[in-house]
């Protein structure tokens, strides 16, 4: 029989974590990562086609309406700087991020302040303001759904683990299986068909700004939140259940019970806390990925978020906009994993920030 492993007992005498230097180091690492991601993405969009034999004219032709005359192609090539060698194009991109960029719309010259991610090749909109305009939609969608699925998934998982083998457990796991298996474009359309087109309880689509009307904001997002949460909650319920079942069999749980601790304390403070670490890891990644654009959900519910922006930009070959979404998604993932790492220390004191 081993010694009970009480997470709270470990490293009690350790010095406080060097939080500040940890965050600084991670942020510096993030900048390096962003540079690498930007270079790789830029190369995919601007270098690979050239290596595959596409000329600058071929690239420019895509951004000239339906009648690409030679003159129009030449003018567009010049305006978008497609004729320059790859290193110059990339240097110009990075320079824009660091010091900004000037851009002629014809009669005027606009200054795009740093960090300038350039202008759309398709509609000439500056990339960063477009991303900032779309981000609140995705943020509202992802965070709202995340709260729901975290609370729902973890609660169901805990209940299932505690009532293992009962009808409740089996039903919850069956629903969880359905949630994991059913694609969002099925559950999403079904929810729209029932609640929007048929019962007309919840308005379909259209995002309402939180600042304009918080109630309508929630009302308009509720279907998407539930649909998205259904998918993720199912996964989290299964993960929590598995983690809880494993932890509940640990010796220290038996010891805690033997000490006469109330069952609630045993389950919540001892068992659940220990099971949360893997959930937290996956939650950070899931949320980070979703913040980069919940493509299917946004498309199904017609939200103008980062997901629909990335899809329409890819369809139209709007390279600067795709670059912007990729970089922003990277930032979200980096930040989410940083927060997860910080939270590890809170949930599990065995983890040192180093």
């Amino acid at each position, binding site marked *: 029989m081993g010694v009970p492993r009480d997470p709270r007992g470990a490293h009690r005498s350790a010095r406080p974590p060097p939080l500040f230097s940890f965050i600084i180091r991670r942020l510096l690492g993030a900048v390096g990562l962003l540079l690498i991601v930007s270079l790789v993405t830029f190369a995919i969009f601007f270098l690979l086609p050239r290596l595959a034999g*596409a000329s600058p*004219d*071929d690239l420019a*032709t*895509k*951004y*000239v*309406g*339906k*009648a*690409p*005359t*030679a*003159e*129009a*192609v030449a*003018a*567009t090539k*010049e*305006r978008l700087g497609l004729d320059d060698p790859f290193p110059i194009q990339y240097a110009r991109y990075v320079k824009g991020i660091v010091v900004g960029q000037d851009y*002629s*719309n*014809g*009669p*005027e010259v*606009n200054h795009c302040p740093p960090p300038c991610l350039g202008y759309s090749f398709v*509609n*000439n*909109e500056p990339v960063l303001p*477009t991303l900032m*305009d779309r981000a609140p939609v995705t943020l509202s969608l992802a965070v709202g759904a995340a709260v729901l699925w975290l609370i729902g998934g973890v609660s169901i998982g805990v209940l299932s683990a505690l009532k293992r083998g009962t*009808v*409740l457990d089996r*039903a919850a796991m069956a629903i969880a299986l359905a949630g994991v298996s059913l694609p969002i474009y099925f559950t999403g*359309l*079904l929810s*729209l*068909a*029932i609640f*929007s*087109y*048929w019962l*007309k309880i919840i308005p*379909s*689509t*259209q995002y309402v700004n939180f600042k304009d009307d918080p109630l309508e904001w929630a009302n308009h997002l509720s279907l998407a939140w539930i649909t998205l949460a259904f998918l993720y909650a199912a996964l989290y319920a299964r993960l929590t259940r598995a983690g809880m079942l494993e932890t509940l069999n640990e010796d220290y749980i038996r010891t805690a019970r033997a000490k006469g601790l109330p069952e609630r304390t045993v389950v919540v403070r001892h068992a659940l806390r220990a099971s949360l670490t893997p959930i937290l890891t996956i939650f950070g990644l899931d949320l980070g990925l979703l913040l980069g654009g919940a493509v299917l959900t946004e*498309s*199904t*519910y*017609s939200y*103008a978020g980062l997901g*629909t*922006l990335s899809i*329409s930009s890819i*369809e*139209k*070959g709007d390279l600067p906009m795709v670059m912007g979404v990729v970089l922003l998604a990277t930032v979200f993932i980096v930040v989410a994993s940083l927060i997860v790492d910080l939270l590890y220390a809170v949930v599990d004191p065995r983890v040192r920030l180093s």
Partner: protein
Amino acid sequence: MKKTKPIALAAAGLLLTSVLAACGGGDDDTSTGGGGGGGSTAQNDALTKVVNASDKKGGTLRIALSDDFDSLDPGDTYAALQWNFSRLYARALVTFKPVPGTGNLELVPDLATDLGKPSDDGLSWTYTLRPGLKYDDGTPITSKDVKYAVERSNYSKQLQTGPKYFKQYLADPDKYKGPYDDKADFKSIETPDDSTVVFKLSKKFAEFDYLASMPQTAPVPKAKDKGLDYKKAVVSSGPYKIDAYAVGKSLSMSRNPSWDQASDPIRTALPDKIEVQLGQDANDIDNRLLSGGLDLDLAGVGVQVPAQGKILGNTDQKKLSDVSTGGTLSYLALNQTVAPLDNIHCRKAVAYATDKLAAQTAFGGPVTGGQIATTIVPSTVSGYVKADAYPSGPDNHGDVAKAKEELAACGKPNGFDIVMSARSDRPKEMQMQAGLQQGFARVGIKVTFKNAPFSDYITTLHASPDYIHKNKIGIIFTKWGADWPSGFGFLSQIVDSRAIKPSGNSNYQETKNPEVDKLLDQAAETPDKAAREKLYAQIDQTVMAEAGIVPLVYSSQLLYRPASLTNVYVSPAYSGMYDYVHLGVK
């Protein structure tokens, strides 16, 4: 508790089943939809008459679009829907008569008092503006603004989305560089006074009024021009002004207080407000139209496949729909430089062996796909004359016997191998390709595929003759719609040898027939419309005689008009979508 779960699950199952049944369409004639049943209209009423005729003002016209506008700037757009829609805030010199049926193809003056007056030598066209015209900021509209609008849209290097027909036809000895980069006055557009604008041409062009109908002649005040950013700050000359435009998200318009009905015989301006939701899911748009949550799908290309079933399977819904011909031709271009299609008999063999019914079926059948085509110029374009150079048999599956005769004449009695292309991201085209492949196999023509996604196909790959030659692509599928609804508008880019370009080419079959070029030039110089139409028919027949093009279908679309929409009719001039300048709401 153990018993309630199965009951709850069963109840949920029943709910789902009933909802799916309700959403599935079928023959349920009791469902109303469309915000209020079929009323007294019938299917296709809007093809020939004004449905729900009304002069009731007020309300909000609720519109949705699955994409964004290519640009709200009238000088920088090339989308048919936008040429139709922009007329609500941007008045061109000329427009199409706001009536249903073929009368809609007739040009009528809009901002101008009359259609263009050509000079005796046909080299200058003069338009006079109506008196009292104002922008939404109350400033007067002058002929200089029309001149400036054409200059910026056709000559600046920034605005490249729209067509450049003015640049093609206006005289330009000094190689004008557009108002942003060239401070010299552009001499080929004159404005002798504030209400007169004169266009000086380099060669005669009898259809100049069609150019004047393009949104590029809608006036733009130089002081308010922001070039590429003007789309977000358009100054209105029409009955509505733009209150807010969130790129890719929404557009809100309300009445332009400076617009005067007395100066505008075209528009009725019934709704108080117009709200457009952008970037909406196409199926969601259909469902909202059918459930009364929307008045109009701005794309105007018909409902999606799931909604087609719901509409055609329900008599009440069917009454609210119209099958309109879009003025677009789906066809096979047979490249005349790729062996063995450099031999006319081999091309004729392909023409006879083409299973047009298979193509029509792949596109959705006669209602939502389109009618079988036998000419290049579609039936809704002026210049159409019925003809059928290569009859495809009584069942339209192709004439195998004739095809074999032509193969023998070509010296390939057992057929040949050939590469065919279509747009790989268009599922219907993929089905069509497979259907045609089987049809060709009947006579020994073995087809392999070399496809590409739409955006590359029409720009750098298949639209490049070099690419076609290098990959030996003999049969190129494509679709074509005219920039304006006349034979010239339809034919000039696809059969003129001088229109062949190294990329972005539309003369896929590479027709290089001096006779065709000559007839096009002759038509451009013929003032009489009827005489021009005869020439277009002649061009059509000449290209068909050399079997450069195999017409498949004149595409059609299933449009839906909710009962809430008033003053609805199909506009042949705008690709068979509804005419957007007259719409109102109940």
